């Protein structure tokens, strides 16, 4: 099962221009969300948006700069939840690659509970099998009942 999100976009602008829009709070806000980002390793910041109650998200994403290589790579943690309790603990990674007429920007949003992801995968795999088993159980039981 999918536990990460990857998007790759090509922009006509230079890595320098794209980088500004990834690392300047007022420019980030123009396309992403209000925030207090600063391009400093270890800086803790917050994105704020509307809450999504049915997903248990209160609209605050708590982030921390984990890696920053000017014009090339930016990584921050991305945690969300509700009422101070973090239920979404993920990583957002931006990579910039200069191209002939612009920049290739890759976004990798990962960490959707990889640990639990494996159990989910197993559950998906086990699903069909279990249904069949269940039916077998039921059939056996029916037979047993008719016999008695």
């Amino acid at each position, binding site marked *: 099962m999918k536990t990460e999100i990857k998007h790759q976009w090509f922009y006509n602008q230079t890595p320098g221009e794209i980088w500004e829009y990834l690392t300047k709070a007022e420019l980030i806000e123009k396309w992403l969300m209000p925030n207090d980002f600063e391009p400093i390793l270890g800086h803790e910041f917050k994105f704020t948006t509307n809450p999504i109650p049915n*997903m248990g998200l209160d609209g605050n994403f708590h982030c921390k700069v984990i890696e920053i290589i000017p014009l090339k790579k930016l990584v921050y943690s991305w945690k969300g939840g509700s009422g101070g309790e973090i239920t979404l603990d993920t990583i957002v990674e931006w990579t910039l690659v200069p191209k002939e007429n612009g920049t290739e920007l890759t976004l990798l949003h990962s960490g959707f509970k990889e640990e639990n992801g494996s*159990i989910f995968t*197993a*559950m998906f795999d*086990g699903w069909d099998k279990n*249904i069949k088993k*269940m039916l077998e159980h039921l059939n056996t039981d029916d037979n*047993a009942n008719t016999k008695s």
Partner: protein
Amino acid sequence: MPTPNLDAFQVIADPSRREILGMLTKDTYNIKALAENFDMSRPAVSKHIKILQTAGFITIQEIGRERHCILNQEGFNELKNWISHFDEFWSRKLQKLDNVLNDKNKT
């Protein structure tokens, strides 16, 4: 004993509950058989089962006199929802970034 209303991630954050789910991916178990695999009391196991059931991870089917636990697909839809939500979210935002950058170049 009241069953706390937990979200999907809180439900599976507990190692015992993950183990129960893990066991159920391989076979269906009745509550007694499940409990025998854990170093805790039957009521404690029953509580975990109740939590899993409330969150939609498992369903309990009565077969004869036994209550069998089987996996239910509903529970992990929440995780899928998060992933598809952010997938779509980033798509929109990256498109917006494109628009913002192009608008900037016009002025």
